[in-house]
């Protein structure tokens, strides 16, 4: 299991488009994927879950992956955050 803390770097936060990007990237992997924000834990492969976090600019999230390809999953998802989901 890998756990990684990550910060939201895009101004608009995790709205519909970034949420879709995360879910689509995550569903390619076999590992389980969870995202934790404050005291809410959701399934990172569920669009409703990811969107309901309503994660704003500057807030921190924990990415938790568990499975055979967990490293790759975390790497790819982290890149999305680092690239600000191709936004500002």
């Amino acid at each position, binding site marked *: 299991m890998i756990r990684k803390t990550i910060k939201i770097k895009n101004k608009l*936060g995790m709205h519909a488009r970034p949420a879709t990007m995360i879910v689509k990237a995550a569903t390619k992997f076999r590992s389980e994927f969870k995202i934790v924000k404050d005291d809410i834990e959701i399934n990172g492969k569920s669009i409703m879950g990811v969107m309901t976090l309503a994660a704003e600019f500057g807030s921190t999230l924990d990415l938790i992956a568990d499975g055979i390809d967990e490293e790759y999953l975390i790497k790819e998802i982290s890149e999305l955050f680092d690239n600000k989901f191709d936004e500002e």
Partner: protein
Amino acid sequence: MKSINVKDFFELKKKELSLSLVTDPKTMDKEIVNPYLNRPGLAFAGYFERFAFKRVQILGEREISYLQSLKSEDMYNIIKEVFMYDIPCFIITKGLSLPDQMEFLANEMNIPLFVSRLTTDKVFHQLRRYLYDQFAPSKTIHGTLVDVFGVGILLTGKSGIGKSECALDLVERGRRIVTDDVVKMIAKDDIVIGKSSTDYGHFMEVRGIGLINVAKMFGIQAVRPTKRIDVQIELMPWKDNMDYERIGLSENYVNILDVKIPIIYLPISPGKNVSVIIEVVAMNYMLKSFGYDAAKDFSQKVQADIKKKSNKQK
């Protein structure tokens, strides 16, 4: 190119348009080749530039009274000149009686003349609608057309994916089948109408059983003859890496006969209840056409929430 034989047209429409043939039956050996109508007033006045002679010609009170105002010899000459063109047929409206020379020349020159007892306006509208339908662009597609809560859903997908079974399940749930296997699609202005390519009735093939008659088996309420196509659903086997729509903020469209129809790529896997999903598609379409979009509503709520939190931070 498509054409309608004038004799066939007469046999089919004489009742509805209240038509009677004035000329010899052998004049009817002609073809209607386009869906338009023409009022040939200008031609009878001697102006033949851009004379749309290939269209069905409608003669109303205006044209007939103009002709009758001419001197006998002038009338003869101008009618003869007009009749030199390869005109499919003339329809004289309001049961007007036509000049003798006209009937004589039409027989001589092989131009069919009909008299309708309807008004010019009625003939125009009914005939136009009929001809437009006949000449409308159409094509057939492999698929199944169902009516779900009044929403016309065209199911497509590879043979054997379960379109027919899905349609049967929908019928069981009280929905209606328009046609199975072959859908004939006809474009009318900005909509596409779907129907069976034959008039045999609502037969369908169920793998392992053979042919069944849906109307006989499930009753007349299970079928309908035609339906506007509102949404296409492409059924496809579930693939893990396929990019399926998750929120529904973006919509995909296909172009059917130059009409834009929304399409949904629906992954199916064993044990999934496809009929319920198809009903959901229909209801979602209805909600959207009434102005409610769940995807937009939800994402706006999320955005508002994000904004509230960001403001608090500052």
